[in-house]
């Protein structure tokens, strides 16, 4: 019996995870290392990887900053009534329930060329949809809960006594945060950052809708993979996808590591 269950588990992992990964790797190298290299050194691939890097950097910075603040307010803010905090708290999770495509559609509806806000921005000369800002906004929407949800439980757990003690002793808000709050939420923040990087690296649906997938302009690595598949250029798609998969696997290792640290602290 025991043997059977373990064997079945191995089978599921093999079929669902190992075999597809292996197949993709062989496909990426089906024309040798040269083919793999050629698929990556295409100008559009380099540009797409750069765009992904840019989006990941900007989104991670913003989401970390606002996520920590939001978590602090949701747990600590006395100037918000408890009921309002409860409401905001349940809204934080909504992006989880929203399909990425719908997330992208929301941005297009709200800020697209046909909308009132979009028209205003167009007059100032700022393009949002089908340009970099829109992609950042879409990814921020998708990644929003990740940081808040990592930091909030830690804040709840440590309680506010130490912080109150610090401010009673005359420390400024800023000092209290750095000396008292930060050391205890540090590992949760790091974990949240890794989650955010992984999610924004892999975001596809929302970015595809918002960016318009314009080659050498708004194309990211994931949308390039999609376009390569649509063009039946599977080997090139495999090359780019392999790079993305390698990054994700690395992030997964980091996640395991920081999860252990988070538990230890």
């Amino acid at each position, binding site marked *: 019996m025991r043997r059977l*269950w*373990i064997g*079945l*588990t*191995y089978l*599921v*992992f093999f079929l*669902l*995870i190992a075999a*597809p990964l292996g*197949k*993709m790797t062989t496909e990426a190298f089906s024309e040798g290392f040269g083919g793999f290299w050629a698929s990556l050194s295409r100008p559009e691939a380099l540009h797409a990887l750069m765009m992904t890097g840019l989006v990941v950097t900007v989104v991670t910075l913003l989401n970390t900053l*606002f996520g920590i*603040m*939001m978590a602090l307010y949701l747990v600590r*803010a006395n100037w918000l009534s408890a009921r309002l905090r409860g409401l905001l708290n*349940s*809204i934080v*999770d*909504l992006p*989880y*329930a*929203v*399909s*990425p*495509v*719908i*997330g992208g*559609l*929301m941005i*297009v*509806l*709200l800020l*697209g060329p*046909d909308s009132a806000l979009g028209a205003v921005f167009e007059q100032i000369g700022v393009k949002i949809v089908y340009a970099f800002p829109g992609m950042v*906004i879409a990814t921020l*929407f998708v990644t*929003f809960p990740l940081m808040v949800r990592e930091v909030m439980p830690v804040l709840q757990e440590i309680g506010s006594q130490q912080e109150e003690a610090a401010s009673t002793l005359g420390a400024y808000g800023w000092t209290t945060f750095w000396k008292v709050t930060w050391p205890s939420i540090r590992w949760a923040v790091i974990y949240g950052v890794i989650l955010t990087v*992984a999610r924004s*690296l*892999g*975001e*596809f*649906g929302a970015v*595809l*809708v918002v960016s318009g997938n314009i080659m050498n302009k708004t194309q990211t*690595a*994931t949308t390039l*993979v*999609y376009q390569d*598949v649509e063009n039946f250029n*599977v080997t090139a798609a*495999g090359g780019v*996808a392999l790079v*993305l*998969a390698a990054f*994700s696997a690395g*992030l*997964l290792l980091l*996640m395991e590591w920081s999860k252990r640290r988070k538990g230890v602290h």
Partner: protein
Amino acid sequence: MNSLLRHKGWTWGFRTTILLYFVVLIILPIMGVYYNSFSLGFSSFAESISDPIAWKSVLLTLKLAVIATVINVLLGTMIAWVLIRYRFPGKALLNSLVDLPFALPTAVGGLMILLLLGPGSLIGGMAEKLGFEIVFHQPAIVIAMIFVTFPFVIRAVQPLLEELDPSEEEAAYTMGAKSSRVFRQVILPSMAPGMISGGMLAFSRALAEFGAVVLVAGNIPGRTLVSSVFIFGEVESDNPVGAAAVSVILLTLSFVILWLINMLQMRGRRS
């Protein structure tokens, strides 16, 4: 005094910025979709929905998501059980591999399935000879959904199994219960909350999945066109109102599921 004023101003600025960020980024877009789908009146919403391609895509998505969820609950419970209860070589590796589908970009997941099962591949060729068609047909969509929602049930059931007090099981055995009965009356009830909440999360994620599905589905209206891909098509063909109408249905469904999960968790915490 001056510094105090400045201090207050900063605090206010901070608070407003954070709340504004939240409202603009999360609340406004969601309200925008609801507003847009009803912007031309309820009749145009009904018209967008009664388009056979639209409602067939919603039904198809529901059907396939249910199949994927059921398979996932069964497989996930088994894997959670094996990973907690047995010791065997490679256990730690498998345990970390569970999260890989979360970490991988969904488009990469779709591509992997496409390559493995596609027409030119070994498995795809064999299935074709047997008269099965996988890629660009419904089975591929189900496989893609299973792939992206794989970790949910496992991660929901594992902590419950870990907490399960072995003495309960031992007591049942001592009193002469057969192992099948112990499983049904002791182990299954303690895993059930995880199976339900994990299954619901997997279901809502399967409903929403786009990246993996769009690559492996044939996207033929009425047969392999799921709602998220339908929405994408409507946006591409410049019909955002039609897209918003279907989005409203999907969103409402997901919100209800999210709310149910929250209720379940609250009830679980209270008892």
